[in-house]
């Protein structure tokens, strides 16, 4: 289930404030610039007309280049699923939720409740889980393949993901080489490079490092742009450590990263689909960690992000889920709801991280199921109401009259059937007695049962044996080439 935000999107910043942030960003890009650790990227910026210094590696980008890039970037496009029923239509209205994010170094084991290193098998399983959850529309991950050679970790993850979902996939591929392998794997699934370009079922996820840097691994932007595959930008500026502690200033840093990456992408391939983002995280002053569940992160990834995106007329990438809490508990629920609602009501197009816990350090299948419910609730709110003759139901009110009841009226039955009232599948509304009788289960326990059931029963359409073999071959080649120890 995806949805549309029917009402007005959240608006905190005034038009003037948005323009101020934009102009401040232009000034930073023009006068301070981006430090680029890649010769390839440096060359592209130089040829495009930016002011580059090969010694300091600083690229200063003039306003006209950014303006051109903003003009070229498409406002609408489609992110395809292996199964077209899962196609994501990227426009200025539709909203979608995604499973997980980049690979997590830890995984909350479903049975033991202990944190452990995730494996390729976990990646396959969580992908299957995401494929089954009805409010998850795109797949990233809440695990990671740490039991394979690190040189090809991402490729094994791609293999596990490709085999276990028919939904669109958003995933990282750090560095030009890994990107090339990932693209050839995706082409194998799509039926060819041209097919992949025409109907991309993958989207690159990229996090250029703040403040104001581009790493050598960001050469993957060039590879994906060369193949015409969409790219989602995730430039987080951590207020107080990688950006000014004041959120507006940190937003300038994040925005600068986004616009610089956008300029690079549009230079390589004009009108390459891109998801814009402007994210400001709080640096927790006591732990130094990125505070995912902070009000600052909720605010910036929803309001600042979407208002800037609307100013640029670009689709944007944001967050649902992602609590700081280490466990799917009350804190996790609160944090996930805060993120999801704020992002939903801001009309953020793609919202990821459902199923993350521990501030992104760990994935949890129970949390993914809980998030699925939270997303359903958010979608229901986003749907709003229709005010018309049928919904005003004046004739029904007249019929029932003062003191009557609406329980059995045809109108009630009709609209119940069409989803007028949201019925949670996971969260319970049963009475205390019923709950005690049913075993006093906490919601994460119930979620665990749901996971077990899904893993037992759900499997997506498998890839053809041909394609499965091709994927294995690509990985074998990569291993042969890259594993030198």
């Amino acid at each position, binding site marked *: 289930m995806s949805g549309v935000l029917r009402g007005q999107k959240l608006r905190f910043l005034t038009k003037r404030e948005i323009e101020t942030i934009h102009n401040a960003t232009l000034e930073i890009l023009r006068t301070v610039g981006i430090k680029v*650790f890649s010769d390839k990227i440096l060359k592209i910026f130089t040829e495009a007309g930016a002011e580059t210094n090969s010694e300091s590696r600083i690229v200063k980008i003039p306003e006209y280049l950014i303006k051109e890039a903003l003009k070229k970037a498409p406002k609408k496009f489609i992110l395809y699923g292996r199964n077209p029923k899962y196609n994501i239509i990227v426009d200025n209205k539709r909203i979608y939720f995604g499973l997980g994010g980049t*690979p997590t*170094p*830890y995984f909350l084991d479903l049975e033991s409740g202990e944190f452990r*290193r995730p494996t390729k098998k976990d990646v396959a399983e969580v992908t299957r889980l995401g494929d089954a959850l009805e409010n998850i529309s795109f797949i990233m991950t809440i695990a*990671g393949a*740490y039991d394979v050679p*690190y040189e090809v*970790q991402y490729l094994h993850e791609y293999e596990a993901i490709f085999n276990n979902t028919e939904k669109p996939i958003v995933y990282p591929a*750090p*560095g030009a080489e890994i990107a090339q392998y990932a693209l050839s794997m995706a082409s194998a699934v799509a039926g060819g490079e041209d097919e992949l370009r025409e109907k991309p079922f993958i989207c690159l996820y990229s996090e250029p*490092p703040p403040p104001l*840097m581009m*790493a*050598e*691994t960001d050469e993957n932007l060039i590879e994906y742009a060369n193949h015409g595959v969409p790219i989602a930008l995730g430039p987080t500026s*951590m207020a*107080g*450590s*990688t950006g000014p*502690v004041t959120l507006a200033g940190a937003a300038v840093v994040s925005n600068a990263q986004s616009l610089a990456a956008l300029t690079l992408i549009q230079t390589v391939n004009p009108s390459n689909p891109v998801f814009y983002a402007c994210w400001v995280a709080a*640096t927790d*002053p*006591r*732990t*130094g960690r990125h505070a995912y569940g902070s009000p600052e992160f909720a605010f910036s990834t929803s309001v600042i992000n979407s208002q800037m995106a609307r100013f640029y007329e670009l689709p944007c990438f944001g967050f649902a889920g992602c609590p700081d809490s280490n466990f799917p508990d009350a804190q996790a629920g609160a944090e996930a709801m805060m993120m999801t609602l704020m992002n939903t009501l801001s009309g953020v197009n793609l919202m990821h991280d459902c199923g993350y816990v521990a501030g992104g*350090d760990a994935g949890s299948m129970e949390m993914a199921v809980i998030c699925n419910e939270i997303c359903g609730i958010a979608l229901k709110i986003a749907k709003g109401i229709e005010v018309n003759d049928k919904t005003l139901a004046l004739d029904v009110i007249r019929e029932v009259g003062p003191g009557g009841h609406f329980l059995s009226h045809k109108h009630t039955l009709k609209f119940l059937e069409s989803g007028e009232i949201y019925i949670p599948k996971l969260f319970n509304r049963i009475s205390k007695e019923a709950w005690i009788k049913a075993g006093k289960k906490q919601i994460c326990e119930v979620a665990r049962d749901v996971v077990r059931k899904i893993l037992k029963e759900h499997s997506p359409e498998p890839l053809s044996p041909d394609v499965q073999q091709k994927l294995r071959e690509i990985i074998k080649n990569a291993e042969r080439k890259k594993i030198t120890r």
Partner: protein
Amino acid sequence: MHFYLFLKIKTVKGRGGVNLSENELLNQVAEAVLSFDENKVIEAVRIALKNGVNPIDIIEKGLTKGLRTVGDKFETGEFFLMHMVAAAEITKKAIDKILQPELSKSKTQRKALGKVVIGTVAGDIHDIGKNIVAAMLLSAGFEVYDLGKDVPAEEFVKKVREVDADVVALSALLSTTLPMQRVVIEALESSGLREKVKVIVGGAPVTKEWAEEIGADGYAENAIEAVNVLKRLLNLT
């Protein structure tokens, strides 16, 4: 008469134990650290030096005392990590700019808890966590040589040799750069330096198992733990 006596006391160096005015000067240095103002700290250090206070004492009884106070206030929640880093950076500047030259002149050695070479490994340009650890180590009384980020293994080896380090601390944030921690350990081995140092590793993807696998001596999940682990490894607790 009083005025003259007062002046005399101020400029007289104590013999043996620390006299009151020297205490005042050292307190001024410690308090300057708490202002988080680089100029104030440098000024206080200069005044202390000018009045004959031993540079070693300025470091240990002035600057480090100030750092320890910042650390105490961090524990109680009054100050934050940002304060720790600010205090550490200012202190380091005062030592590098003014006090170390004095020590080199008189060929005196600092008595730090240990010498730590720290950096983010090659290919990785993330350094916030590493910066915080470096600050915590400095506050705890270690001599810290921060090589920055994207540091090749050879540079770690070179610095260890140059300063006769006791510890090598390696940070990596990405699973793709994590293996570089192993590379540094191997480089230390082939240079014959592995036995001379303790190696600790850290960063989001680092686990106890990884640290054991690559033969690191210790690992920490956060900056505060890092200090404790190091103290344990060096038998300083």
